[in-house]
């Protein structure tokens, strides 16, 4: 990524390489009759120039889209501003002698279908632009008397010049449906009152409304429980991410260096011991750790059997805030060090030996060499990795949720415990408490925090400023 940012010249020349005369603007301004007719009737230009199959496909797409919009889409989008108003009602059916329920509006479904319809419309607009370009291109080619691709040629081209289209379509479709669409949906939810909390009669779980930026105000102000929780959770999340990232990074690197020393015997064996602990699935090892550290768990029992603790006494690993916070950081070290060891071993070997030799000649001891040569070199090479680890730690759901569950919670009214990260709190708010709108706000704020941190650190690092230093 870094080298591509630093080469603006190359980027420009690349862009011009993709420029073609067959743009939408040119098609509208200079296109002939067949191209103009392709605007309302997709595929007309292709049909007129004997690209029958292609034209029929384009036309079919348009018909399908129009059919969808008339039967469902327009209604779905029209409902978006109000999100529905009709409540479900009980109606006495005299003929049958029973109560019947009239179908009310369901805001969540309205929102989902509305957003999906907008996505389909955007997809259609992209298709429309494509067909217009195609019509214009075929018109130009016909005018110049050049070869017009047959359907067979087009198919062949999908495996050659247009290979990226055939390879990328399905993955991108997956990402749009299962990542981008849900994300937009959740972001929109942050601007509604879809929550169990705000409603006294719980009506907002079926019918809800747009409330603008109110939820952001709730989350950011300090005069309510949610806001107070937010700032303390944010503070702990950042402290956690810093500790979790750097303890693992430095200790793991030292471990790798100790194992790789010339004089260390049985290197493979030591490496195997540490790798074994990460080879066990993470949720298994975390659940094991959690049970071992319970008040009646293995560690406390062991300490009692050894006489260090008296009978009935136990160390409060997950029950006192400070203990719990230190415990999760220490266990994260246990989980993370072998990974860092694996990842840094190869890079450590790449450090030029001359650097170490000249340091030795100058009489530097191990500490000086580590802080003056190894660490700067490693920081330089692994900055992208460090940033991903840091963001990964901010979003580190598994460790917290499976170990402490976010607890201990001190005030009974609080929604967040003392070890809750933004993500685990987000999970609790949405899945357990059903405060969907506040959860969405927390998600957006997490993204903002992450984006700021990654951008600032990335711009201030050596690998961004001067790429050539160590090369």
């Amino acid at each position, binding site marked *: 990524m870094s080298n*591509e940012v630093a080469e603006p010249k190359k980027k420009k020349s690349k862009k011009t390489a*993709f420029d073609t005369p067959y743009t939408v603007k040119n098609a509208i301004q200079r296109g002939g009759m067949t191209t103009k007719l392709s605007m309302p009737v997709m595929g007309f230009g292709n049909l007129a120039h004997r690209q029958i199959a292609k034209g029929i496909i384009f036309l079919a797409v348009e018909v399908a889209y129009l059919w969808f919009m008339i039967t469902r889409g327009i209604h779905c989008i029209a409902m978006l501003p109000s999100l529905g108003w009709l409540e479900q009602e009980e109606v006495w059916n005299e003929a049958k002698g029973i109560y019947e329920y009239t179908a009310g509006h369901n805001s969540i479904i309205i929102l989902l279908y509305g957003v999906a319809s907008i996505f389909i419309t955007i997809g259609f607009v992209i298709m429309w632009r494509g067909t217009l370009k195609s019509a214009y291109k075929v018109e130009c080619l016909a005018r110049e008397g050049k070869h017009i691709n047959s359907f067979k040629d087009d198919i*062949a081209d999908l*495996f*050659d*010049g247009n*290979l*990226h289209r055939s390879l*990328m379509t399905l*993955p*991108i479709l*997956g*990402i749009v449906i*299962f*990542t*981008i*669409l*849900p*994300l937009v949906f*959740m972001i929109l939810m942050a601007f509604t009152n879809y929550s169990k909390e705000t409603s006294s009669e719980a009506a907002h779980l079926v019918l809800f409304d747009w409330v603008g930026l109110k939820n952001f105000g709730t989350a950011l102000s300090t005069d309510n429980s949610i806001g107070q929780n937010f700032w303390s959770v944010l503070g702990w999340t950042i402290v956690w991410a810093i500790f979790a990232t750097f303890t693992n990074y430095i200790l793991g690197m030292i471990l790798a260096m*100790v*194992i790789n020393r010339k*004089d*260390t*015997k049985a290197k493979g064996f*030591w490496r195997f*011991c*540490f*790798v*074994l*602990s990460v*080879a*066990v*699935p*993470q*949720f*298994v090892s975390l*659940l*094991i750790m959690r049970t*071992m550290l319970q008040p*009646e*768990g*293995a560690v406390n*029992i062991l300490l009692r059997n050894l006489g260090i603790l008296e009978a009935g006494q136990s160390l409060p690993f997950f029950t006192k805030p400070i203990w719990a916070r230190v415990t999760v950081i220490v266990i994260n070290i246990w989980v993370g060090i*072998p990974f860092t060891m*694996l*990842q840094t*071993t*190869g890079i450590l070997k*790449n450090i030029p030996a001359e650097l170490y030799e000249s340091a030795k000649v100058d009489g530097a001891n191990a500490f000086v060499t580590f802080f003056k040569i190894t660490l700067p070199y490693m920081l330089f090479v692994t900055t*992208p990795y460090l940033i991903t680890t840091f*963001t990964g730690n901010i*979003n580190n759901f*598994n460790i917290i949720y499976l170990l402490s569950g976010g607890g201990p919670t001190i005030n009974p009214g609080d929604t967040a415990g003392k070890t809750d990260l*933004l993500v685990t709190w987000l*999970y609790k708010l949405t899945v357990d408490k059903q405060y969907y709108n506040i959860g969405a706000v927390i998600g957006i704020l*997490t*993204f903002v925090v992450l*984006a700021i941190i*990654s951008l600032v650190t990335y711009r201030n690092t050596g690998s961004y400023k001067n790429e050539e230093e160590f090369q």
Partner: protein
Amino acid sequence: MKKQTTSYKAKKRTVNILIHVLLAVLAVIWIFPITWVVMISFRAEKGSYTSSFLPKSFTLDNYKKLFTDTSILNFPKMFMNTLIIAIFVCIISTLFVLAVSYCMSRLRFKMRKKYMNIAMILGLFPGFMSMIAVYYILKAVGLSEGSMVRVALIMVYSAGSGLGFYIAKGFFDTIPKALDEAAFLDGATKFQVFTKVTIPLSKPIIVYTVLTSFLGPWLDFIFAKVICRANADYYTVAIGLWRMLEKEYIDNWYTCFAAGAVCISIPIAILFIYMQRYYVEGLTGAVKG
């Protein structure tokens, strides 16, 4: 002069001994929980927490119960669920990852830079922030009930795999372009180059991608929990093991949890140890990238 070298040697030896002792202590700390869970899985005493650290007697009943007692927590079924899901996810994800990585590494097209930037931005959102929405989408298309839960999980696990192209792209970048060009001169299409030149040269990264995507469903916990909800019939192994430690089950299932953990961990550990060199290669390649 001679005295000095001997004292230097003596110092070196003590340092060496100290370091080996330190490594031994650390290795014990790291191995301790694993040996402990193996030990618990053979423990004969019932119940969850006991007052002695070492079990008083050993048995194989925990394993028997795990695979035969299917009335409440049906472990064999969970195992089969996870296996079926993992196989499908593995096939789809591998195809997606390889296709996208190849496009990013070798093909040049207008959307390439944009796609990479969007992938980076999407990576910054908390992964399961959209989970609730995903659940509603699955519900809207009727994939949230009954045996369709499996299909839903397969789709959820594999749909986003087009975003995880960094490592494989880093690997493809290291394959010399001259090979591609030679093939083009012989009249090969880009697709032929992809399938006949790049793929045969990429065994390490294919093995890596296959294994990581196969492991995904075994290790994930959050998505499975949200999508399965109360559908105990379609639980994956991860939720099953987690459930065994819940308050209502822990008394009966504590030692079975240990047995289950051992059963799941052994194959996964073997796969992981086998794949770690690809893991390291892929990463160092990507950092150099």
